[in-house]
């Protein structure tokens, strides 16, 4: 017994104990960081801020924050460092908690909509507020929800949208060539960006307008 105590004595010195505890804590922190997703590590569920006004130019700015921040199926949380911090995720899987929105959550946040489908007011959602909203692209296409209405594609202007049953993108810049500049969360590989699209002339797409713009 005394031999064992003598052998263990160097290991029980305070400095050695502290070093061992520190290494254990470090490895646990590393393991936790490895398991954390972008959403669990960065995002929140804070209440949105009601805002009396909503301008199309201001919403363009909101949309541009999401640019280069990636795409996440069913997602709705991103920062503003122009890096997709959840790249190459499994396709059409929401549970992996990566960075970025999908097409309908980008539209929901940029259009400052309420979770209450009967509320047409304006609600500013922080970029790190993880929210998708109750609508999928097909719902937007049908003008579901008080803030949303189907609209003539020919008359669609900046921050109106084109929606199909599986996708929605907002007009960033209208073009006379027949193709518009569209800001959209397109797919895992292509992320969120501005793309040249012919949705305006594509019969599978309809026009959608967020009602209640201040200007």
């Amino acid at each position, binding site marked *: 017994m005394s031999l064992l105590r003598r052998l263990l004595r160097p290991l029980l010195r305070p400095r050695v104990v502290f070093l061992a505890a520190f290494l254990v804590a470090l490895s646990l922190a590393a393991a936790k960081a490895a398991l954390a997703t972008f959403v669990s590590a960065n995002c929140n*569920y804070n209440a949105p801020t009601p805002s009396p006004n909503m301008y199309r130019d201001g919403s363009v700015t909101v949309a541009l924050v999401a640019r280069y921040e990636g795409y996440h*199926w*069913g997602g*709705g949380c991103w920062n503003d460092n122009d890096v997709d911090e959840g790249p190459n995720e499994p396709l*059409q899987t*929401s*549970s992996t908690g990566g960075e970025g929105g*999908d*097409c*309908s959550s980008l539209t929901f946040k940029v259009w400052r909509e309420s*979770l209450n*489908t009967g509320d047409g007011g304006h609600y500013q959602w922080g970029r790190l507020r993880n*929210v*998708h*909203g*109750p*609508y*999928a*692209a*097909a*719902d937007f296409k*049908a003008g*579901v929800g008080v803030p949303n209405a189907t609209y003539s594609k020919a008359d669609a202007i900046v921050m109106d949208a084109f929606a199909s*049953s*599986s*996708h929605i993108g907002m007009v960033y810049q209208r073009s006379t060539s027949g193709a518009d500049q569209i800001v959209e969360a397109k797919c895992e590989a292509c992320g969120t960006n501005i793309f040249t699209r012919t949705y305006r002339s594509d*019969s*599978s797409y309809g026009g959608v307008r967020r009602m209640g713009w201040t200007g």
Partner: protein
Amino acid sequence: MDGLTALRALTVAAAGVLLAAGCRDHATPTGRVFVGHVRAGPVERFHSPRLRACLRRFGELHVTGRTRVVERVGLLGASLTISDPASPWLYGCDFTPQRQSLCGAAVGEWRAGRLNDPRLDILCADAARRALGAAWVVPQPGARSIAVRELGLTEVYPIAGGLPVRIWTRDGVRYERSSATFDVTQRGADGRTLTHERLEAAVAG
């Protein structure tokens, strides 16, 4: 209470919690069991206001002689699932059981027996204005019914028409998170459990 007694009490309490957790995960129906009504066939056999409402919603859906419809009426909700072999899209329309007007809809990619996503819809609500969630489940080979367990209620969806089954939950909806959890058990012809899963679905795309 000495330390040993306290330890014993804690052990008994922990065992009780574990047993309770285990009980929640097995696949036996609890409470009331409700078996929904289902009808499946070619589209021309359906002349319901629900079908008309659904076709109005999906203007791009071109009905042909090969278009198949599965109509379900259950306790929490009613639905139409529509598929045409010429199209990769699966269309769903959701209704509250008492009404013929559409309250929600979904579109999924349906190719070679695979569905891209459960296509959760959370836009319907019950009479007390509680949100309802509807999603598709693809039946396992050999499955004859799908049971979805709620608190005090199990709703059984007979499998029909060779299409994904549109199932409903009220207790599993997390509206603020745009998601829902379904407690799903697939059963074979002899009532044997084939699979039991907690299906996590989110509004997406």
